[in-house]
Protein backbone atom coordinates (compact mmCIF):
# COMPACT_ATOMS: atom_id res chain seq x y z
CA UNK A 1 0.00 0.00 0.00
CA UNK A 2 1.01 3.56 -0.26
CA UNK A 3 0.88 4.17 3.46
CA UNK A 4 3.32 6.77 4.63
CA UNK A 5 4.81 4.26 7.01
CA UNK A 6 6.07 1.40 4.84
CA UNK A 7 5.85 -1.11 7.63
CA UNK A 8 2.14 -0.57 8.15
CA UNK A 9 0.98 -4.17 8.10
CA UNK A 10 -2.65 -3.27 8.58
CA UNK A 11 -2.95 -1.79 5.09
CA UNK A 12 -2.87 -5.08 3.21
CA UNK A 13 -5.13 -6.86 5.67
CA UNK A 14 -7.70 -4.12 5.51
CA UNK A 15 -7.43 -3.64 1.76
CA UNK A 16 -8.92 -7.11 1.42
CA UNK A 17 -11.97 -6.18 3.47
CA UNK A 18 -12.87 -2.80 2.04
CA UNK A 19 -15.80 -4.06 -0.03
CA UNK A 20 -17.27 -5.91 2.92
CA UNK A 21 -16.85 -2.76 4.97
CA UNK A 22 -18.69 -0.68 2.36
CA UNK A 23 -21.44 -3.32 2.12
CA UNK A 24 -21.76 -3.34 5.92
CA UNK A 25 -21.04 -7.06 5.99
CA UNK A 26 -18.29 -6.95 8.62
CA UNK A 27 -18.51 -7.70 12.29
CA UNK A 28 -18.47 -4.59 14.52
CA UNK A 29 -14.90 -5.23 15.65
CA UNK A 30 -13.59 -5.46 12.08
CA UNK A 31 -15.55 -2.31 11.18
CA UNK A 32 -14.03 -0.39 14.04
CA UNK A 33 -10.60 -1.63 13.03
CA UNK A 34 -11.00 -0.24 9.53
CA UNK A 35 -12.47 3.04 10.74
CA UNK A 36 -9.60 3.57 13.14
CA UNK A 37 -7.10 2.74 10.43
CA UNK A 38 -8.49 5.00 7.69
CA UNK A 39 -8.67 7.84 10.18
CA UNK A 40 -4.86 7.60 10.38
CA UNK A 41 -3.89 6.36 6.92
CA UNK A 42 -4.61 8.74 4.05
CA UNK A 43 -3.70 6.17 1.39
CA UNK A 44 -6.26 3.70 2.68
CA UNK A 45 -8.81 6.48 3.12
CA UNK A 46 -8.29 7.51 -0.51
CA UNK A 47 -8.61 3.88 -1.58
CA UNK A 48 -11.85 3.53 0.36
CA UNK A 49 -13.31 6.72 -1.09
CA UNK A 50 -12.47 5.82 -4.70
CA UNK A 51 -13.87 2.33 -4.21
CA UNK A 52 -17.08 3.77 -2.76
CA UNK A 53 -17.39 6.13 -5.72
CA UNK A 54 -16.79 3.27 -8.18
CA UNK A 55 -19.62 1.30 -6.60
CA UNK A 56 -21.90 4.34 -6.54
CA UNK A 57 -21.24 4.92 -10.26
CA UNK A 58 -22.18 1.30 -11.03
CA UNK A 59 -25.37 1.67 -9.02
CA UNK A 60 -26.34 4.90 -10.76
CA UNK A 61 -25.34 3.99 -14.31
CA UNK A 62 -29.01 3.54 -15.21
CA UNK A 63 -30.95 1.41 -17.64
CA UNK A 64 -31.50 1.90 -21.36
CA UNK A 65 -35.00 1.48 -22.77
CA UNK A 66 -35.67 -1.70 -24.72
CA UNK A 67 -35.67 -0.89 -28.45
CA UNK A 68 -39.33 -0.79 -29.52
CA UNK A 69 -38.69 -2.90 -32.61
CA UNK A 70 -37.08 -5.63 -30.52
CA UNK A 71 -39.89 -5.58 -27.97
CA UNK A 72 -42.48 -6.01 -30.73
CA UNK A 73 -40.46 -8.85 -32.26
CA UNK A 74 -40.05 -10.54 -28.85
CA UNK A 75 -43.75 -10.40 -28.05
CA UNK A 76 -44.71 -11.61 -31.51
CA UNK A 77 -42.29 -14.52 -31.23
CA UNK A 78 -43.50 -15.46 -27.76
CA UNK A 79 -47.11 -15.21 -28.83
CA UNK A 80 -46.45 -17.80 -31.53
CA UNK A 81 -44.41 -20.03 -29.25
CA UNK A 82 -46.77 -19.91 -26.30
CA UNK A 83 -49.96 -20.33 -28.32
CA UNK A 84 -52.07 -23.08 -26.74
CA UNK A 85 -52.57 -26.10 -28.98
CA UNK A 86 -55.83 -26.22 -30.89
CA UNK A 87 -58.43 -28.54 -29.32
Amino acid at each position, binding site marked *: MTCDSPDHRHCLELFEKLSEYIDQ*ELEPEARRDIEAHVAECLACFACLQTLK*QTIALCQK*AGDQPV*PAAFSRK*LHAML*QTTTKPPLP
Partner: protein
Amino acid sequence: MTAAPPSNHPKIIDNDTELIQAINSGQIEKFPELVRRYEQKLYNFGRRMCGDAADAEDLVQDTFLNVFRYLKDFRHETKFKNWLYRVAASTCIKKRRRSKFAPERELSLEEFVPGGEPGSVAQVPDWAQIPLEKLLNEELVQTLNQAILSLPEPYRLVVVLRDMEGFSTEETAQIMNISGANVKVRLHRARLFLREKLKGYFAHDV
Protein backbone atom coordinates in the same frame (compact mmCIF):
# COMPACT_ATOMS: atom_id res chain seq x y z
CA MET B 1 -33.73 -25.09 -14.59
CA THR B 2 -34.29 -28.81 -14.28
CA ALA B 3 -36.91 -30.09 -11.86
CA ALA B 4 -35.67 -29.86 -8.30
CA PRO B 5 -36.43 -32.61 -5.79
CA PRO B 6 -39.22 -31.84 -3.31
CA SER B 7 -38.02 -29.79 -0.36
CA ASN B 8 -39.28 -28.27 2.82
CA HIS B 9 -38.46 -24.70 1.84
CA PRO B 10 -41.25 -22.28 2.69
CA LYS B 11 -42.93 -20.75 -0.35
CA ILE B 12 -41.93 -17.20 -1.09
CA ILE B 13 -44.80 -14.98 -2.11
CA ASP B 14 -43.90 -11.95 -4.17
CA ASN B 15 -45.57 -9.63 -6.69
CA ASP B 16 -45.24 -12.25 -9.40
CA THR B 17 -46.66 -15.23 -7.52
CA GLU B 18 -50.28 -14.74 -8.55
CA LEU B 19 -49.39 -14.22 -12.21
CA ILE B 20 -47.13 -17.28 -12.27
CA GLN B 21 -49.77 -19.44 -10.63
CA ALA B 22 -52.27 -18.27 -13.23
CA ILE B 23 -49.88 -19.11 -16.09
CA ASN B 24 -49.05 -22.47 -14.56
CA SER B 25 -52.73 -23.26 -14.15
CA GLY B 26 -53.20 -22.94 -17.88
CA GLN B 27 -53.71 -19.23 -18.54
CA ILE B 28 -50.68 -19.02 -20.79
CA GLU B 29 -52.09 -15.95 -22.50
CA LYS B 30 -50.83 -14.14 -19.39
CA PHE B 31 -47.20 -15.00 -20.11
CA PRO B 32 -46.60 -11.77 -22.10
CA GLU B 33 -47.42 -9.84 -18.91
CA LEU B 34 -44.54 -11.58 -17.17
CA VAL B 35 -42.31 -10.67 -20.11
CA ARG B 36 -43.42 -7.04 -19.95
CA ARG B 37 -42.46 -6.89 -16.26
CA TYR B 38 -38.89 -7.97 -16.87
CA GLU B 39 -37.91 -7.33 -20.48
CA GLN B 40 -36.22 -4.01 -19.73
CA LYS B 41 -34.27 -5.37 -16.75
CA LEU B 42 -33.15 -8.42 -18.71
CA TYR B 43 -32.27 -6.38 -21.78
CA ASN B 44 -29.99 -4.19 -19.68
CA PHE B 45 -28.52 -7.23 -17.96
CA GLY B 46 -27.82 -8.62 -21.43
CA ARG B 47 -26.19 -5.38 -22.59
CA ARG B 48 -23.94 -5.38 -19.55
CA MET B 49 -23.00 -9.03 -19.90
CA CYS B 50 -22.70 -9.23 -23.70
CA GLY B 51 -22.00 -5.63 -24.68
CA ASP B 52 -23.59 -5.98 -28.05
CA ALA B 53 -27.28 -5.11 -28.58
CA ALA B 54 -27.92 -8.10 -30.85
CA ASP B 55 -26.41 -10.52 -28.31
CA ALA B 56 -28.46 -8.89 -25.55
CA GLU B 57 -31.62 -9.36 -27.62
CA ASP B 58 -30.74 -13.03 -28.16
CA LEU B 59 -30.17 -13.43 -24.44
CA VAL B 60 -33.56 -11.91 -23.58
CA GLN B 61 -35.34 -14.05 -26.15
CA ASP B 62 -33.62 -17.30 -25.13
CA THR B 63 -34.15 -16.55 -21.44
CA PHE B 64 -37.88 -16.02 -21.84
CA LEU B 65 -38.16 -19.15 -23.96
CA ASN B 66 -36.40 -21.09 -21.20
CA VAL B 67 -38.61 -19.48 -18.57
CA PHE B 68 -41.69 -20.50 -20.52
CA ARG B 69 -40.35 -24.02 -20.86
CA TYR B 70 -39.40 -24.45 -17.19
CA LEU B 71 -41.90 -22.24 -15.36
CA LYS B 72 -43.82 -25.29 -14.18
CA ASP B 73 -40.69 -26.39 -12.29
CA PHE B 74 -40.44 -23.09 -10.42
CA ARG B 75 -41.24 -23.96 -6.81
CA HIS B 76 -41.44 -20.45 -5.33
CA GLU B 77 -38.48 -21.19 -3.07
CA THR B 78 -36.92 -17.88 -4.09
CA LYS B 79 -38.34 -14.69 -5.51
CA PHE B 80 -39.30 -15.21 -9.17
CA LYS B 81 -36.88 -12.43 -10.14
CA ASN B 82 -33.98 -14.38 -8.61
CA TRP B 83 -34.96 -17.54 -10.48
CA LEU B 84 -35.33 -15.53 -13.69
CA TYR B 85 -31.80 -14.18 -13.35
CA ARG B 86 -30.53 -17.65 -12.65
CA VAL B 87 -32.03 -18.76 -15.95
CA ALA B 88 -30.61 -15.66 -17.66
CA ALA B 89 -27.13 -16.14 -16.16
CA SER B 90 -27.10 -19.78 -17.18
CA THR B 91 -28.27 -18.87 -20.70
CA CYS B 92 -25.60 -16.19 -20.84
CA ILE B 93 -22.81 -18.51 -19.71
CA LYS B 94 -23.78 -21.13 -22.29
CA LYS B 95 -23.76 -18.49 -25.02
CA ARG B 96 -20.40 -17.12 -23.95
CA ARG B 97 -18.90 -20.61 -23.88
CA ARG B 98 -19.75 -20.86 -27.53
CA SER B 99 -18.04 -17.55 -28.19
CA LYS B 100 -14.40 -16.59 -28.30
CA PHE B 101 -15.07 -13.19 -26.78
CA ALA B 102 -14.59 -13.60 -23.04
CA PRO B 103 -11.00 -13.75 -21.83
CA GLU B 104 -10.99 -16.19 -18.91
CA ARG B 105 -8.49 -15.44 -16.17
CA GLU B 106 -8.34 -15.13 -12.42
CA LEU B 107 -7.96 -11.65 -10.97
CA SER B 108 -5.56 -11.64 -8.06
CA LEU B 109 -5.77 -9.17 -5.24
CA GLU B 110 -2.08 -8.36 -5.59
CA GLU B 111 -2.56 -6.77 -8.99
CA PHE B 112 -4.80 -4.14 -7.42
CA VAL B 113 -2.75 -3.33 -4.36
CA PRO B 114 -1.68 0.23 -5.04
CA GLY B 115 2.07 0.52 -5.48
CA GLY B 116 4.03 3.62 -4.67
CA GLU B 117 7.15 4.58 -2.92
CA PRO B 118 7.26 4.67 0.85
CA GLY B 119 6.48 8.16 1.97
CA SER B 120 4.66 9.01 -1.23
CA VAL B 121 2.01 11.63 -0.74
CA ALA B 122 -1.45 10.15 -1.05
CA GLN B 123 -4.58 12.16 -1.43
CA VAL B 124 -8.19 11.57 -2.18
CA PRO B 125 -8.60 12.28 -5.90
CA ASP B 126 -11.14 14.85 -7.03
CA TRP B 127 -13.33 12.32 -8.82
CA ALA B 128 -14.04 10.51 -5.58
CA GLN B 129 -15.32 13.70 -4.01
CA ILE B 130 -17.49 15.12 -6.76
CA PRO B 131 -21.24 14.45 -6.33
CA LEU B 132 -22.38 11.63 -8.60
CA GLU B 133 -24.92 13.73 -10.46
CA LYS B 134 -22.15 16.10 -11.54
CA LEU B 135 -19.79 13.28 -12.40
CA LEU B 136 -22.09 11.04 -14.43
CA ASN B 137 -22.26 11.67 -18.13
CA GLU B 138 -22.63 9.53 -21.21
CA GLU B 139 -18.90 9.24 -21.78
CA LEU B 140 -18.28 8.05 -18.24
CA VAL B 141 -21.12 5.51 -18.45
CA GLN B 142 -19.59 4.21 -21.70
CA THR B 143 -16.18 3.97 -20.06
CA LEU B 144 -17.71 2.09 -17.16
CA ASN B 145 -19.61 -0.26 -19.48
CA GLN B 146 -16.43 -0.97 -21.44
CA ALA B 147 -14.57 -1.64 -18.19
CA ILE B 148 -17.30 -4.06 -17.11
CA LEU B 149 -17.07 -5.85 -20.44
CA SER B 150 -13.33 -6.24 -20.06
CA LEU B 151 -13.80 -8.11 -16.77
CA PRO B 152 -13.47 -11.89 -17.00
CA GLU B 153 -17.00 -13.30 -17.01
CA PRO B 154 -17.31 -14.71 -13.45
CA TYR B 155 -16.25 -11.31 -12.08
CA ARG B 156 -18.47 -9.42 -14.51
CA LEU B 157 -21.49 -11.48 -13.53
CA VAL B 158 -20.91 -10.84 -9.83
CA VAL B 159 -20.48 -7.09 -10.14
CA VAL B 160 -23.43 -6.74 -12.51
CA LEU B 161 -25.70 -8.71 -10.19
CA ARG B 162 -24.54 -7.00 -6.99
CA ASP B 163 -23.87 -3.41 -7.98
CA MET B 164 -26.04 -2.88 -11.04
CA GLU B 165 -29.00 -5.22 -10.61
CA GLY B 166 -29.15 -4.73 -6.85
CA PHE B 167 -29.07 -8.34 -5.62
CA SER B 168 -27.72 -9.10 -2.16
CA THR B 169 -24.67 -11.28 -1.57
CA GLU B 170 -26.91 -14.21 -0.65
CA GLU B 171 -29.14 -13.77 -3.70
CA THR B 172 -26.12 -13.47 -5.99
CA ALA B 173 -24.70 -16.65 -4.49
CA GLN B 174 -27.98 -18.45 -5.22
CA ILE B 175 -28.19 -17.12 -8.76
CA MET B 176 -24.61 -18.11 -9.53
CA ASN B 177 -24.70 -21.30 -7.49
CA ILE B 178 -21.54 -20.38 -5.60
CA SER B 179 -20.88 -19.63 -1.93
CA GLY B 180 -21.42 -16.21 -0.38
CA ALA B 181 -17.72 -16.10 0.48
CA ASN B 182 -16.88 -16.64 -3.17
CA VAL B 183 -19.25 -13.85 -4.19
CA LYS B 184 -17.47 -11.48 -1.80
CA VAL B 185 -14.01 -12.39 -3.09
CA ARG B 186 -14.99 -12.00 -6.74
CA LEU B 187 -16.94 -8.82 -6.08
CA HIS B 188 -14.07 -7.11 -4.32
CA ARG B 189 -11.65 -7.93 -7.13
CA ALA B 190 -14.14 -6.87 -9.78
CA ARG B 191 -14.70 -3.56 -8.02
CA LEU B 192 -10.97 -2.96 -7.69
CA PHE B 193 -10.57 -3.73 -11.40
CA LEU B 194 -13.25 -1.15 -12.26
CA ARG B 195 -11.70 1.34 -9.87
CA GLU B 196 -8.40 1.01 -11.71
CA LYS B 197 -10.12 1.65 -15.04
CA LEU B 198 -11.87 4.72 -13.63
CA LYS B 199 -8.60 5.95 -12.17
CA GLY B 200 -7.17 5.75 -15.68
CA TYR B 201 -10.16 7.62 -17.08
CA PHE B 202 -9.80 10.41 -14.56
CA ALA B 203 -5.99 10.25 -14.86
CA HIS B 204 -5.44 10.38 -11.14
CA ASP B 205 -3.11 8.40 -8.97
CA VAL B 206 -4.26 7.09 -5.65
